[in-house]
């Protein structure tokens, strides 16, 4: 074999991990769903997790803010760190953790309340505002960051459920942003949206990474390629390959990654 140079130039210094999974194992009862996954979620960038159904990508995502705690019989081993601290440590307050590590789900799930109250809910329960004026400010800023302000500024008192699907998803993003999280987890945030609403969310994700660390689970490889800087490919509970997105989609190192992203998985 000839000696070869990699065509992908090394990225300038990689951002440090904001969160990191270290030898993470997850069990649902007797069934093991994740096997020794070690994976960084780098600061102020988008990390996409891809893989076929049941590969463990959502399981890993849900470990990041301990959403697996609510699943009966779920058990997590290994460590998940946030700024170096294990989030599974007994001293960690899960409510505080979820304020720092927010989540947006597959189906938009606004509360059956007004647009204003949807966004104000988190800041209220976490006591983030001293008065109505401050709360108004948080609501406005969050809606602006989520790219929804212009569309709803004149109808904040209307129910959130009356918005279109794409608007509802952006409302959920505004709701997640309102408590000033550091990390935002997204579990297939566009799978219930049409292509235009998807493009708007993707553009939003690209903007949000200026200020937030984002981990996204997606079934759309094109979406992972478009929005992420790092991609992790999972299969049957194992992390098969992790790398810069541009490397994963042009020259994956692992045969299983190549087979999956080129549509050869059988």
């Amino acid at each position: 074999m000839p000696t070869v140079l990699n065509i992908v130039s090394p990225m300038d210094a990689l951002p440090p991990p904001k969160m990191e999974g270290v030898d993470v194992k997850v069990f649902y009862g007797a069934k093991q769903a994740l096997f020794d996954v070690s994976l960084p979620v780098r600061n102020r960038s988008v990390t996409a997790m891809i893989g076929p159904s049941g590969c463990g990508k959502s399981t890993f995502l849900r470990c990041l803010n301990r959403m697996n705690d609510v699943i009966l019989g779920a058990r997590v081993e290994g460590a998940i760190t946030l700024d170096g601290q294990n989030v599974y440590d007994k001293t960690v307050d899960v409510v505080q953790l979820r304020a720092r590590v927010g989540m947006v789900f597959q189906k938009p799930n606004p509360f059956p309340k007004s647009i204003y109250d949807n966004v104000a809910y988190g800041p209220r329960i976490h006591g983030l505002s001293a008065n109505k004026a401050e709360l108004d400010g948080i609501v406005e800023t969050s809606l602006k960051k989520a790219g929804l302000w212009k569309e709803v500024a004149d109808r904040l008192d209307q129910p959130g459920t009356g918005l279109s699907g794409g608007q509802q998803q952006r409302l959920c993003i505004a709701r997640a942003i309102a408590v000033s999280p550091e990390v935002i987890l997204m579990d297939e945030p566009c799978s219930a949206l049409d292509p235009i609403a998807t493009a708007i969310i993707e553009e939003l994700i690209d903007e949000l990474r200026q200020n937030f660390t984002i981990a996204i689970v997606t079934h759309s490889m094109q979406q992972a390629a478009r929005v992420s800087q790092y991609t992790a490919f999972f299969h049957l509970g194992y992390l098969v390959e992790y790398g810069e997105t541009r490397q994963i989609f042009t020259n994956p190192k692992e045969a299983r990654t190549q087979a999956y992203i080129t549509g050869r998985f059988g």
Partner: protein
Amino acid sequence: MANEHLFKRFDEELSRLDSRISEMGGLAESQLARSLQAIRERDSGLAESVIAADVRIDAIEKDIQEHVLQMLALRQPMAIDLRQILSAVKMATTLERIADYAKNNAKRSLVLMQGAALPRAIGGIDRIGRLVQSLLTDVLDAFAKNDVAAAEAVWKRDEEIDDVYNGLFRELLTYMMEDPRTITAGTHLMFMSKNIERIGDHVTNIAELIAFRVTGTSFASDRPKGSGAIYRPA
């Protein structure tokens, strides 16, 4: 290349792309061989037929470009598929250039046929021509087999062509200095040898494309280069 996509038509399209490239490669090879034969045998009919056949290669190049455009838009290829498709369009452009040089040599051979034969100079053109011909054949074989090691072997041999070309260049200069009546023919022969040398460069490009499509990487070492003697004052 690797095949068996879940979506079967994609495999058909990829293999059609490769067979069109092979077809184009075969035609370019034949154009080069026939142009050399026309020069050697002073066969104007053969030279005319080389000139006329060039449109077929142009047509395949156009077809490959359209095919690639559609595959990029409709299949959204990734990784090895993306590299295969990108390298196909570059291969098509490269093979079209090779055929173009062969055609140009056929045209110039018609001019040469109108004057006295210059057997020694023609012999020189034929030598470099056969050398390039063998490299072109080898690189197209390497393409058909996705054989990166064979491609690299071809890639390294371009140095031989450069050396023969430099010798031929000096030889032609000498003839023209000795007898100014050979300047017209000598100038055409100069361009013809340069055309053949350029075909050799395109062969190395094809070798690099083979490495890129198979491994996603290019050859690491610097390609051995000829002495560059002709660029220095005599």
